[in-house]
């Protein structure tokens, strides 16, 4: 972020050419070439075929579910992840380090393993799933199951992004608010949360992006009913199974473009906030 204006014209630090060259090279082989291949594959279809593939109700339903559940999961994670990060940083209690390590578990576990674990626990006979089932709430084989899996895998991103931000938070700011007569609730709402907003936004973005692409942990719990609980990444895989490579690429391309646009939008909101508060000199 700091490089923006001055260093583009004349980089002062030595090694700029080398590091920038490497960055471009790396991004090209790791990101750009696969993306290009994806794009080239999907343009083997003509426009009518492309529209037909994309406007298929099953495809639309899968995309809607993927974006909707991911958004909701990221939102829920922001709330509970913030609370978790807050208590891990601000309070001292026994087993804090252990709890802190547990946060990373969803990242470290093979997604298939967590998927099977979630499916078992949340099935209608499972440890958790058996309780809401008599009330008519299905936690597995439903879109709720998709949401649960996406919350699970997005959680560490929010906690890990917020922890350093909470640690850096100037506690004197809260004391100042208290000395000015603000209640604890007012202080949290008007001072603490707004100060953490950039980090909250970043955490949300990461959790959201992770959820959009999630495959392994979702497919075991979702039930994968077309039109109901089928997510976009699963649809892509089934298209590949049907040997419809162009169709799979088209869906993937649209998914990717939409993701990129949403991420850019969230970034732009973040820039706007930072610019407003003058955080970037």
């Amino acid at each position: 972020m700091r490089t923006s204006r001055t260093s583009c014209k004349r980089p002062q630090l030595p090694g700029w050419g080398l590091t920038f060259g490497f960055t471009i090279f790396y991004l090209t082989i790791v990101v750009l070439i696969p993306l290009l291949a994806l794009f080239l594959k999907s343009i083997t279809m003509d426009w009518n075929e492309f529209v037909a593939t994309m406007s298929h109700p099953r495809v639309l339903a899968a995309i809607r579910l993927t974006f909707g559940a991911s958004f909701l999961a990221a939102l829920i994670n922001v709330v509970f992840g913030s609370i978790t990060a807050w208590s891990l940083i601000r309070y001292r209690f026994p087993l804090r380090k252990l709890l802190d390590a547990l946060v990373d578990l969803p990242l470290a576990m093979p997604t298939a393993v967590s998927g099977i674990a979630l499916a078992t626990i949340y099935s209608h006979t499972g440890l958790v799933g058996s309780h809401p089932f008599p009330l008519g709430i299905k936690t597995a084989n439903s879109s709720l199951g998709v949401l649960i899996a996406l919350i699970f895998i997005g959680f560490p991103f929010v906690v890990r992004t917020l922890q350093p931000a909470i640690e850096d938070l100037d506690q004197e700011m809260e004391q100042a608010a208290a000395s000015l007569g603000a209640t604890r609730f007012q202080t949290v709402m008007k001072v603490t949360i707004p100060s953490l907003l950039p980090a909250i936004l970043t955490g949300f973005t990461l959790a959201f992006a992770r959820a959009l692409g999630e495959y392994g942990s979702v497919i075991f719990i979702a039930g994968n009913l077309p039109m109901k609980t089928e997510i976009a990444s699963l649809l892509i895989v089934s298209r590949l199974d049907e040997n419809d490579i162009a169709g799979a690429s088209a869906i993937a391309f649209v998914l990717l473009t939409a993701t990129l646009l949403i991420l850019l939008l969230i970034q732009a909101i973040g820039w706007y906030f930072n610019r407003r508060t003058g955080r970037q000199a």
Partner: protein
Amino acid sequence: MSVEVRSVSKTYGNFTALRDIHLKIETGELVALLGPSGSGKTTLLRIIAGMDTPDAPSTATANADETDGSIRFFGEDVAKMSVGQRRVGFVFQHYALFKHMTVFDNIAFGLRVRPRSSRPSKSEITDRVHRLLKLIQLEGFGQRFPMQLSGGQRQRVALARALAIEPRILLLDEPFGALDAKVRQSLREWLRRLHEEMHTTTVLVTHDQEEALEVADRVVVMNQAKIEQVGSPAEVFHHPASEFVIDFLGNVNVFHGRIAGGNFQPGPLSTNSSQLQSAGTSSSANKIYVRPHEMKIARMKEDADAIEATVERINRAGVNAKIHLQTKQNDQVRVDLPLDQLDALALEIGERVYFKPIQARVFAPDYTI
């Protein structure tokens, strides 16, 4: 009387931050708590503000008063009041401004968080914030964010924010500590003028003796969890009550020696006792203290008790020249001399001179052995 601190102590584990502190602050006064870091001055300020709680008074002591360990504002015990209820304006060293809010919103914060019943109307808030912006000479800066201001400007905003709630007492914790010398000097003078206008009872914590002596009506010198001396700036400077105070308030030369028969006989120095200003009983004092400006230098041994030394260094920057002398015993002595006197003497480095204290002090030794 605005603030009364009665027998307040504070310990953190094994560390004693405050030991049985008694302090009274009169209404409208500007009092400076002065001391080195770790002397307990900030802890005392935070206890007055209600951000720290003093230790519970030990009831074991025979003469324990039930008001021990209490803080009173205008006679009212505030021990159980929260920071917000005490209505103190607190200014932090590092400003603690709300970074996501404009200057205007920062200053208005204390008014806007009030319960609806006592909250001023919107236009009243706007009026008051504009008056405060004018007071801190930042009119037209209301829509800026703290990050867009200089350090000195930020601290003025922090002060305005504290003043907005019309505090009963204004508490400043090293308010100018993070600023550079020039800004610090001008803010210091500005604060003094502001205090003359508003007459809000103010407690200022500082480790800068110059700041304390210049700004405050009264100075409370603190050291190692205790108050060493309370007095006007002139009193503490010219009549320091202890070795610590004289040492902390400016430069001082220390001579080691003994008092014998009313005469002090330091290693190299002999001074008539009539010139000694003693604090406490000085019968067995073994150090005498002489400020650099309380010395005279001559080229000839005019007085029998003048001491021989060589000129090591002369620094002419300032109102007084700072002259470093070295005695035969390799003791370093500092003498401040007005520039015209220095010129009259025409001293050169390496020259032999004779110096003599005009005024000196001895203190009763601490019986801490």
